[in-house]
């Protein structure tokens, strides 16, 4: 099929080839549930399995939670009160059977990304954070990319191919 056809949301067969969604919301913890449910609803045209929906929800929840408690760390945001309300940006793209989720904040950023991604590493043990956020995103999605610069916010980009889990997991 030609690229031009792919840009349209649907073909004659009513299969979704490309679909895109963007939204932003306040960086408050009630919105974690909202974000993961929104992404789960967005992928329903791909007929994901319950397992896949659950994986996606967990990964989105981790990324959004990170943005809220680490990106917009209270100590960091107290300094610049003049700015508008802190927002988390969510950007999802479905292309064929691949879902890409991007979670972005404009918060304090990560100094050492490799260290942050280590399982069990956390800067907030006193808040009962387990340090498993990035490890979960890696475990539940197929691809994970983290872009960050101190003071410039963080972007987490995750990809997941849908419709292959059933036969990959059969050996279990």
């Amino acid at each position: 099929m030609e690229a031009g056809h792919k840009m349209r949301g649907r073909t004659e067969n009513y299969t979704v080839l490309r679909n895109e969604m963007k939204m932003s919301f306040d960086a408050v913890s009630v919105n974690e549930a909202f974000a993961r449910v929104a992404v789960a609803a967005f992928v329903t045209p791909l007929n994901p399995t319950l397992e896949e929906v659950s994986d996606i929800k967990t990964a989105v929840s981790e990324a959004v939670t990170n943005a809220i408690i680490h990106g917009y760390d209270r100590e960091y945001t107290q300094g610049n009160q003049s700015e508008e309300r802190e927002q988390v940006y969510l950007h999802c793209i479905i292309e064929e059977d691949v879902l890409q989720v991007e979670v972005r904040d404009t918060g304090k950023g990560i100094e050492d990304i490799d260290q942050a991604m280590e399982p069990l590493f956390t800067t907030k043990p006193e808040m009962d954070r387990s340090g498993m956020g990035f490890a979960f995103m890696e475990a539940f999605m197929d691809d994970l990319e983290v872009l960050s610069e101190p003071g410039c916010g963080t972007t987490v980009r995750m990809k997941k191919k849908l419709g292959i889990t059933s036969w990959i997991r059969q050996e279990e």
Partner: protein
Amino acid sequence: MEENFKVIDNYLMVRMPEEVDHHKSVYISKTADEYIMREGVGNVVFDFEDTRFMDSSGIGIIIGRYKKISYFGGKVFAINTDMRIKRTLMICGLHKVIEIME
């Protein structure tokens, strides 16, 4: 929400909500600690019967309570875990330090 916490003998029973995330975990951790201190219970049981979703915040709750209670020789249990929850706990290796029962 207090009815989700119950003390039976030396056990604190915590009924976990339908969705365990950062938003809910702050309250659960705080309240569980209050009960542990006030009632002086030795063991904690997390009941996942109603839980359909859990992210790493749930792991944080369990590890946090485990650290407090194991110091005095107490044990942590996770009961009524479905396949999903069980898998999440096992990814973190929690089955080595707490008792998981389906």
